[in-house]
């Protein structure tokens, strides 16, 4: 598994224009099949780091490679799930999910089939003909995830996808996300400010400090997949939760 990392980040620096350093000295290697969470105070550059991996913005210094190539060249392998669901309000749910396939030029028959399957995966088959405004926040996020999954990305980048949802919905979606991952295996990068979410989902947690954003701790999460909801109540889970919370607190002060 540790032959060549799927994503390699070396000596990464990022500043916007002549502004201050947002990210500094980031080194990270992520192998295929990992699920890495970035956690840190708001404004520490988590979203920026994710967008750098996606090739949506470029590094000021240092190197990022995705499967050995620059991120801009590896976009077909990746998909991004934005903080708000980022659906097109004029397209129905199915049409929103279909979009990446449409842009890729897939045949209509294949698109329909694939969309139906992905809506089933996220449990929204019944909402295919609805418009985004008719859905709850959690449902919209599911649509966004279904849209990302249509292209079967090798790498899925999620920027605080459940940040705006209530805790119950978020727990549900966390479980669903892991269930989806057990079938549609992808390497995950996940930004969150919820320690519990990070521990439950990840194989590794990267804690970022602020001004500039630096990796201050890397925490391995040893629980094997598939993970059951009950994991959240085990002493081992709670211990790791405490460790992570401490690491995060160390950054804040």
């Amino acid at each position, binding site marked *: 598994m540790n032959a060549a990392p799927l994503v390699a980040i070396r000596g990464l620096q990022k500043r916007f224009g002549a502004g201050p350093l947002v990210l500094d000295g980031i080194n990270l290697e992520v192998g295929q099949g990992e699920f890495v969470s970035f956690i840190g105070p708001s404004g520490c550059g988590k979203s920026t780091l994710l967008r750098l991996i996606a090739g*949506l913005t470029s590094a000021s210094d240092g190197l990022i490679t995705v499967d050995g190539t620059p991120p801009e060249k590896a976009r077909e392998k*990746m*998909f991004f799930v*934005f903080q708000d669901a*980022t659906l097109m309000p*004029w397209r129905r749910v199915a049409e929103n999910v279909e979009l*990446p396939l449409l842009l890729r030029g897939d045949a209509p028959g294949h698109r329909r089939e694939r969309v139906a399957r992905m809506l089933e995966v996220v449990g929204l088959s019944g909402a295919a003909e609805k418009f985004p*405004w008719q859905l709850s926040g959690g449902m919209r996020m599911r649509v966004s995830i279904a849209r990302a999954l249509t292209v079967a990305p090798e790498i899925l980048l999620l920027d605080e996808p459940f940040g705006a949802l209530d805790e119950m919905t978020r727990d549900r979606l966390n479980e669903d996300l892991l269930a989806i991952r057990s079938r549609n295996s992808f390497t995950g990068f996940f930004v969150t400010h919820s320690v519990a979410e990070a521990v439950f989902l990840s194989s590794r947690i990267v804690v970022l400090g602020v001004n500039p954003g630096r990796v201050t701790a890397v925490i391995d999460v040893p629980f094997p997949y598939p993970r059951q909801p009950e994991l959240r109540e085990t002493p081992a889970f709670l211990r790791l939760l405490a460790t992570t919370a401490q690491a995060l607190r160390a950054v804040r002060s």
Partner: protein
Amino acid sequence: MSPSLRSRLSTYLLPAATAAALIVLWYVLKAVFQVPSFVLPAPHEILVAAWEERSFLWPAALVTVRGALLGFSAAVGVGFLLAMALGFSPRVKASLYPLILVLQMMPVTILAPIFVLWLGQGLPSIVAITFMIGFFPVVANTTMGFISVDRNLRELFVMCNATRAQEARYLRIPGAMPYFLTGMKIAGTLAPIGAIVGDFLAGSAQGGVGGIGYMTISYFSQLKTPALFATGLVACVMGFVFVGGVNWLHWRLLHLWHDSMVKKE
């Protein structure tokens, strides 16, 4: 009272009652101050005049509608294309938009004689004047729509390696629709007015009939005041039909999804 009945009451009954009250007031004031009909005709006199002059007013209305439709279509079509150029290229916008603003500052009363000079009396000038009045709101609004695309949606298209044409077709144009339709609504309100003003300034009866603006001048010079008011009535009806048409289009295209239309509870 059920809510739907109440809302129907306030949409139809209230304005109708207000109109009736105003008409009564009109009669009362005319009687009390003994205003002669060549200064202020009574409402029924206007209707009678409209009926008596129908053989002039109807063709005139058609001429004006034609001018308004052509000018409006040109304003919407050219406005959309220009907005696309402005919205897609910051450089085109920087070099062109100030000039469009300057052009917009030019009053129609000054442009009109220039058009007549270039295009002669008649339909082409009327269309040009209507176009000038209607095209700015379309350009301004639609350009705004092309520019204000959600940043995340644009990045979504980048992630999909979408071409510029795909981005235009699936993102920018549908996203700009509400803005475009708003501009179109304003242009639709202005078009009949533009055509009438155009006809007023550049109309002619030669080779057939003049439009409503031309009839206005004609009745005015003959002091046929009730008929003069009747042209106003015709103009109102035309305006309503125009705005109604545009509103219908607006509704057709947006009612399923746009915030301004969807019913939220």
